[in-house]
């Protein structure tokens, strides 16, 4: 009966209930939309980083992270490394051999990051084909390089031109070679786009005199939420005196900080939104109490306990909030779904600013269901907190004075 009473009470003043429901609807709608776009963008950033840099998890030789030289590379035929590919949560594991070199073409020189990799695997990982501006991706046994767009611009290179590279290889061996350019690629990452040169793993090992070696294994997971679990499992199965297992969060703390800083701004916006809505909800409760003081007095007089009376008011608040929150989620879902499938593409200075940071200027909406449930929970908590006010009023209510109201 208390539930029935509460449910019918919220429809006593349909206009007020509609206004309250609408305010909660818009709060949840905008909060979920904002947060979905924000988290979708972060997801895109993380995905880029994970695919182009570290993987969700990176395995490298102990000491490599602090001193990224080829002498800190490791043997790829170590049987222990089978644990990486045998882990059921691992979707892909890409071996990479990275080292710095001085490049030259014509009269110009430039320091570049040379990355030896498996073209087929990295194409799947980085989705390279669509990013290739000219030429074609090299094969695993080719002797050619794929050059980042800015490097090619610097040297005014075209496909078929030759580049010369000089470096110091594994254990100080002299590394020098010339390679034709098989393709020019545009990376969204500013760092990669300005200095990356990629070539087949086999040729990289040959160039650096590091046969059968790699500097890192970038591990991609089927479910990124299992990252900590995989880090723990790999740390347990690999010899930690030889190998180090790192999550992308450990490998790229500056990205974590950037996301946290940007996220804090978004949270302040959400807090302001919720404060406005909370005052609206509180105003409704104030009106509700004022209008029904006489009725509360009658109910207390006839023997309805204060707790039961408050329960009715509490349920009214919960029902109203629930209706608004559920409608808000239902209302925003098509919009979120649309922007998930058709990410919003930034243009102009905003896009340039994001590109300067090395990210793609597209804002896909995240479909993570926890965003909707979190914001529904937030409004429910706000509603519960506001319901303490009627509890306070009802606790103090004198039935005689209430009936004089």
């Amino acid at each position, binding site marked *: 009966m208390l539930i029935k009473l509460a449910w019918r009470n919220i429809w*006593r003043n349909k206009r007020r209930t509609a206004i309250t429901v609408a305010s909660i609807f818009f709060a949840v709608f905008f909060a979920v939309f904002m947060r979905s776009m924000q988290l979708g963008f972060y997801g895109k950033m993380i995905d880029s980083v994970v695919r182009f840099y570290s993987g969700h998890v990176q395995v490298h030789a102990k000491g490599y992270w602090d001193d990224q030289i080829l002498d800190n590379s490791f043997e790829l035929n170590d049987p222990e490394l089978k644990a990486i590919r045998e882990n059921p949560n691992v979707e892909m594991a890409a071996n990479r051999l990275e080292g710095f070199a001085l490049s030259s073409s014509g009269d110009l020189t430039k320091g570049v990051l040379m990355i030896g990799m498996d073209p087929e695997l990295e194409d799947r990982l980085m989705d390279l084909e669509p990013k290739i501006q000219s030429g074609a991706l090299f094969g695993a046994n080719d002797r050619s390089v794929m050059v980042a767009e800015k490097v090619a611009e610097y040297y005014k290179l075209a496909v078929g031109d030759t580049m010369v590279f000089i470096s110091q290889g594994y254990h100080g061996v002299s590394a020098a070679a010339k390679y034709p350019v098989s393709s020019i690629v545009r990376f969204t990452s500013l760092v990669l786009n300005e200095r990356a040169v990629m070539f087949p793993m086999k040729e990289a090992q040959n160039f650096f005199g590091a046969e059968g070696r790699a500097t890192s294994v970038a591990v991609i997971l089927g479910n990124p939420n299992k990252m900590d679990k995989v880090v723990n499992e790999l740390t347990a199965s690999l010899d930690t005196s030889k190998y180090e297992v790192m999550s992308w969060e450990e490998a790229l703390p500056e990205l974590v900080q950037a996301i946290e800083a940007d996220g804090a701004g978004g949270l302040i916006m959400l807090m302001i939104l919720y404060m406005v809505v909370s005052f609206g909800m509180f105003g409704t409760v104030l009106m509700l109490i004022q209008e029904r003081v006489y009725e509360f007095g009658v109910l207390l*007089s006839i*023997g309805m306990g*204060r707790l039961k009376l408050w329960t009715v008011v509490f349920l009214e608040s919960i029902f109203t909030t629930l209706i608004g929150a559920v409608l808000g989620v239902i209302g925003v879902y098509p919009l979120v779904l649309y922007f998930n499938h058709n990410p919003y593409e930034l243009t102009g200075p905003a896009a340039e600013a994001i590109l300067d940071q090395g990210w793609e200027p597209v804002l896909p909406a995240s479909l993570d269901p926890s965003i909707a449930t979190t914001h529904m929970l937030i409004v429910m908590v706000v509603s519960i907190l506001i319901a303490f006010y009627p509890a306070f009023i009802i606790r103090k209510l004198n039935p005689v004075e209430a009936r004089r109201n």
Partner: protein
Amino acid sequence: MSAVIKTNNLQKYYNPGESLEVRALDGVTLEIERGEFTAIVGPSGSGKTTLLNIIGGLDHETAGTATIGDTTITALSDNELIDFRLNNIGFVFQAYNLIPVLTAQENVEFIMLLQNKSKEERQRRTAELLKEVGLGDKMNSRPMEMSGGQQQRVAVARALASKPQFVLADEPTANLDSQSTSDLLDIMAELNQKENVTFLFSTHDQRVIDRARRVITLEDGKIISDEKR
């Protein structure tokens, strides 16, 4: 006959000890027997409503005692009084007695629900009571679909639903027309005579006073006459 209500030297002072002290009740001692049909009358400010509020466990006295049956209600805490009112006293107020979103049937049942009575008992008694007050055909009507007189009759049914020791009615006819007043008084008188329900009214209404079998007159917080008919 046994006393349902006893008050002994009941006093209620507002602003005690100050220059603006108001003596709403000034030593009221009375006994109401089971089955009485009593009206408390007097001019505005004479203390009628204050007396009913204290007897009804809705307000606290300054001094003296009020006993309902075997319970001295002036010694009960606020929470104990709520339970006591639920199980021992029926209330009919001047107006807006009913919960507007519940039907007549639900309004009457509501009291028994608070008493944790079984569904069967609630439904059976509700049907009986609404029939007794002549509203057997209005069970599913909400208050706004009924006249003022019909609403007061539902309030009477609700007051009786908890099987109280007595019914307190504070100006129950103040907002009713002649016919509704007459109908309501007929019903209450019938319940009083047939089922020995004790009614205690505060009223200005001469039609109620005429039907009462005992009239207690208050003035300045004191009983100035107590007439049994």
